[in-house]
């Protein structure tokens, strides 16, 4: 049997594969630890860079721990790898961090490769020994979730070099736990499980415009849209109103906040509405009144205009250059009284003051 030592560079170059060791891409030889295929994925690593027990090695999208003493030779380091069999999620500064671990419960053994090596109701978790994880998991009653079951940490141990080994005892399920994604206490500290989606943060509307919104309630735990009745309200109905169908009506210039709440959801989203000024061309003029006036008779006409702008009233013939068959008896900026003086059709015209924007009605 010839040793590898004198030819290690050749073997690394010829048989080495890319791995990630402590976050750095390196080349190492990875071999199966045993020839037989079994449930526990164990490998041998041979490399030329220093490694230590408890280090994390990423190889082909899997995460392994160095879980043996390291055989240090003149030019090489050799150790055994064990594939991480679980990811423990912990919330750190409102962010969910994932930590690969070796998990052993009463149903699944890791160290011994035997079942029932951990007492019922307990879980043993081996983390990489880092300062960050020491501060996170070496704290009594810190909770974690494994196999959809919450545990609280009751003891820890540093006697296995490179690992923090903790023992957790089964804990009761909290309403704040995200059991689906196994994040303990996820829905506490203002983190809502439900949020309103499918809506813009701001909308700009012109006066009189109507916008139909179709918000949805998203369940962040199950990552799905849920059916939920929604309630809408406006904090400034003088600017914008909203009905039960989610139709926002722009009333007047200004800003309004539309609040949407799901009846079965605790989340909500605020929508700001900016009502933009309407150009004169887009103003709407509606004349109301009878379309007929008998000879020498009188009728009153009123007008509604966008923004209640004032109008002036005139009568004209239906024929270009003709003489209107009536007169304006009296007028205000929103109404007038017209009198027919001769037979024949004529037009009554309302024109927004100081503009050319007008609307007319044929009077017979």
């Amino acid at each position, binding site marked *: *049997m*010839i*040793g*590898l030592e*004198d*030819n290690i*560079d*050749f*073997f690394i*170059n*010829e*048989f080495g594969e890319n791995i990630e060791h402590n976050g750095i891409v390196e080349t190492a*030889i990875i*071999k199966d630890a045993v020839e037989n295929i079994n449930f526990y994925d164990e490998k*041998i690593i*041979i490399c030329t860079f220093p490694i230590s027990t408890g280090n994390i090695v990423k190889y082909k999208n899997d995460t392994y721990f160095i879980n043996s003493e390291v055989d240090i030779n003149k030019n090489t380091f*050799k150790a055994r790898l064990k594939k991480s069999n679980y990811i423990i999620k912990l919330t750190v500064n409102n962010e969910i961090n994932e930590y690969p671990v070796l998990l052993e419960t009463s149903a699944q053994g890791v160290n011994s490769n035997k079942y029932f090596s951990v007492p019922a109701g307990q879980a043993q978790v081996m983390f990489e020994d880092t300062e960050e994880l020491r501060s996170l998991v070496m704290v009594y009653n810190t909770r974690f979730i494994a196999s959809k079951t919450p545990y609280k940490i009751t003891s820890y141990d540093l006697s296995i070099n490179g690992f923090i080994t903790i023992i957790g005892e089964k804990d009761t399920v909290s309403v704040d736990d995200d059991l689906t994604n196994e994040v303990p206490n996820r829905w506490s500290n203002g983190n809502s499980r439900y949020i309103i989606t499918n809506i813009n943060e701001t909308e700009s509307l012109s006066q009189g415009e109507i916008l139909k919104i179709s918000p949805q309630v998203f369940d962040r735990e199950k990552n799905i849209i849920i059916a939920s009745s929604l309630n809408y309200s406006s904090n400034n109905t003088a600017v914008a109103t909203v009905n039960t169908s989610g139709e926002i009506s722009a009333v007047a210039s200004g800003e309004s906040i539309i609040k949407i709440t799901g009846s079965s959801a605790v989340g909500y989203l605020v929508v700001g509405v900016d009502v933009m000024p309407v150009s004169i061309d887009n103003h709407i003029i509606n004349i109301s009144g009878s379309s007929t006036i008998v000879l020498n008779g009188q009728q009153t006409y009123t007008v509604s205009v966008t923004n209640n702008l004032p109008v002036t009233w005139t009568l004209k013939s239906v024929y270009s250059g003709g003489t209107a068959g009536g007169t304006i008896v009296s007028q205000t900026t929103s109404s007038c009284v017209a009198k027919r003086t001769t037979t024949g059709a004529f037009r009554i015209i309302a024109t927004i003051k100081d503009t050319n924007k007008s609307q007319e009605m044929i009077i017979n």
Partner: protein
Amino acid sequence: MFNDTEIKILSNSDNTTILKTEYADVQPFLKTYTFENGFSILTTMRAFCDKESIINETGYVLINNDKYKAIDIKIWDTYKEAFLYKCKK
């Protein structure tokens, strides 16, 4: 020996530095070497070189642009016999 094959002696596994160009008698030859940790290396060529050749067990050679690693060198009275493994990388 028919020293009719050009071999380029490399300084390392990179093909960047050729230390010396020599001529040797290169023949197909199969031989397996077993290393620790279950590594088996099948050499497919052997090269008979002059005794003064600088080929050694840590070096690499280029033959017709193929890179070989000398796995074993036997030194005889008048020549060296190098067992060559064809590198995959």
